[in-house]
């Protein structure tokens, strides 16, 4: 591996993400600064004020407007960024479809927080899982370093001519966003080598007038445009793998691909999780392996495109699969659980159990992961809520 030019220091997930935005040479940032906003944009506002980043920063009156503002800047050919969380993301929902449908490769950070009522500022994935059908690539990180690196990779992936889809990068509230750990900040020259300047082929240009977002009837190209989005999303899986490999060659950190497999070789029980819960699950699997229990973890990094093929391959020798969800589709099941079962349909007879845990920021502890493994070993199927209080 080549010598990596970087400076390591201690910082929160939000600070690390802001560094990632700076290194990606973003030209336009828009955000709504009121709760549930994140300190990412606070840090970026400071960077803009101190001229550490030459971006235009525009404060708006709502998250819906923030997404509308980055839509406008991106279509004018400027690399753009915004961040939000929780109810703020829900308020953006309509614009998320417009950005994806217009094929604008905007990158956005989402700090995962619960959706009220009751009011709750803590971490779960209900906000971003509710956006899974908007046409955005979605990725979950487990460390501050990964959150920063993923943001930089995000622009490369989204702006790839075979993809041209927006990119949503998640960080667990508090557990990453407000937690300090070491992060290596790469030198700008290395990032420049990895991430070329942004050029938008169909940018708004008064010398070359074009129509955008016009009307389409049932006989028009509407349905074909949606089919093309689906195909681009599937194609993005290979682009993600290629870009992740190039990132490791230039910047020295290898995140594998759409999933991370941890101790899955010879594993009887495989737990599938994403975000920081997957990190804790890896820790517990290491301890259980030392006791001779054959436990492995699959960490889903990319939820869109859904890594169905990778999961079928990585679980094929397991006796039982468990899926941890930090969000639930009421009347159906855990969001990831449902997708895993769909991926395995007709290709595997392995039983799958859904575990709903960590809702509204309830800590997912070592004993909770152990309980999941024990329930799998006991042959429990269906959907199980973990660590709920009996009297509530």
């Amino acid at each position, binding site marked *: 591996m080549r010598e990596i030019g970087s400076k390591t220091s201690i910082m929160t997930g939000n600070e690390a993400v802001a560094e990632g935005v700076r290194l990606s040479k973003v030209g336009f940032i828009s955000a709504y600064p009121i709760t549930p906003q994140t300190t990412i944009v606070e840090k970026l506002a400071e960077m803009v004020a101190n001229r550490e980043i030459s971006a235009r920063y525009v404060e708006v009156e709502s998250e819906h407007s923030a997404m509308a503002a980055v839509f406008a800047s991106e279509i004018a050919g400027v690399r753009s960024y915004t961040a939000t969380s929780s109810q703020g993301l829900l308020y953006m929902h309509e614009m998320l479809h417009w950005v994806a449908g217009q094929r604008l490769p905007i990158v956005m950070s989402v700090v995962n927080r619960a959706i009220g009522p009751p009011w709750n500022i803590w971490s779960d994935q209900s906000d971003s899982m509710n956006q899974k059908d908007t046409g955005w690539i979605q990725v979950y990180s487990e460390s501050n370093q990964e959150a920063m690196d993923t943001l930089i990779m995000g622009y490369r992936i989204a702006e790839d001519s075979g993809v041209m889809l927006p990119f949503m990068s998640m960080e667990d509230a508090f557990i990453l966003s407000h937690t300090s*750990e070491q992060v290596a900040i790469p030198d700008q020259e290395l990032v420049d080598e990895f991430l070329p300047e942004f050029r938008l082929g169909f940018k708004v240009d008064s010398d070359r007038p074009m129509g955008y977002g016009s009307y389409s009837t049932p006989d028009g190209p509407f349905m074909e445009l949606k089919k093309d989005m689906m195909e681009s999303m599937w194609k993005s899986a290979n682009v993600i793998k290629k870009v992740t490999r190039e990132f490791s060659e230039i910047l020295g950190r290898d995140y594998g691909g759409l999933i991370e497999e941890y101790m899955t070789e010879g594993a009887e029980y495989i737990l599938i999780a994403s975000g920081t819960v997957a990190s804790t699950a890896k820790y517990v699997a290491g301890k259980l392996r030392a006791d001779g229990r054959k436990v492995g973890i699959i960490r889903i990094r990319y939820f869109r495109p859904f890594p169905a093929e990778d999961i079928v391959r990585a679980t094929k020798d397991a006796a039982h699969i468990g899926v941890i969800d930090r969000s639930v589709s009421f009347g159906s099941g855990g969001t990831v659980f449902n997708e895993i079962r769909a991926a395995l349909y007709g290709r595997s007879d392995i039983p799958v159990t859904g575990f709903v845990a960590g809702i509204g920021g309830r800590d997912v502890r070592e004993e909770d992961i152990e309980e999941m493994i024990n329930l799998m070993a006991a042959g429990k199927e269906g959907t199980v809520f973990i660590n709920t209080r009996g009297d509530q």
Partner: protein
Amino acid sequence: MLEVRFHGRGGQGAVTASKMLALASFLSGEYVISFPFFGTERRGAPVTAFTRIDTTPILLKTQVYNPDVVVVLDSKVMETVDVTAGMKPGSSLILNSPEAPEDLGLPYHVATVDATRIATDLGLGNRTNPIINTAMLGAFSKSTGLVDMTQIREAISEMSPSKADVNVSAAEKAYSSVRMGW
């Protein structure tokens, strides 16, 4: 892996102390993670913060339930918060208190330091709200031997918003005056 829990009140700097300890350990070549108890912070309300230190990357992302060391910035907090919760028989408790460790009658390794007096004498903060977090780090270094004063000094200098040299002096005074009951 070493797990440390800090108790204090909003405004006393428990969260900063947890971060400074992480930085000092990082400067000593360790992997670290530092985080507050995620709640709604108010000045004067009990605050908890955590630091994990290890020789390998830290995967465990839960709160700290069984701390190896507990640091209490304000012994009055003990009236409403069970600061010993989850402590193991060999765990250490470092208290900001003018009392001798053996007078407290606690079944742990107890160390005491009069951090309030150190801070007041040095003019850190004011009499009603002295800044005692840096003194507690000096006491931590001496009583646990887990992180060297060289790195504690460096971390305080890097992270103090003002009066870095006075904060370093507070840590040094606490280092030389902490009393260990073991």
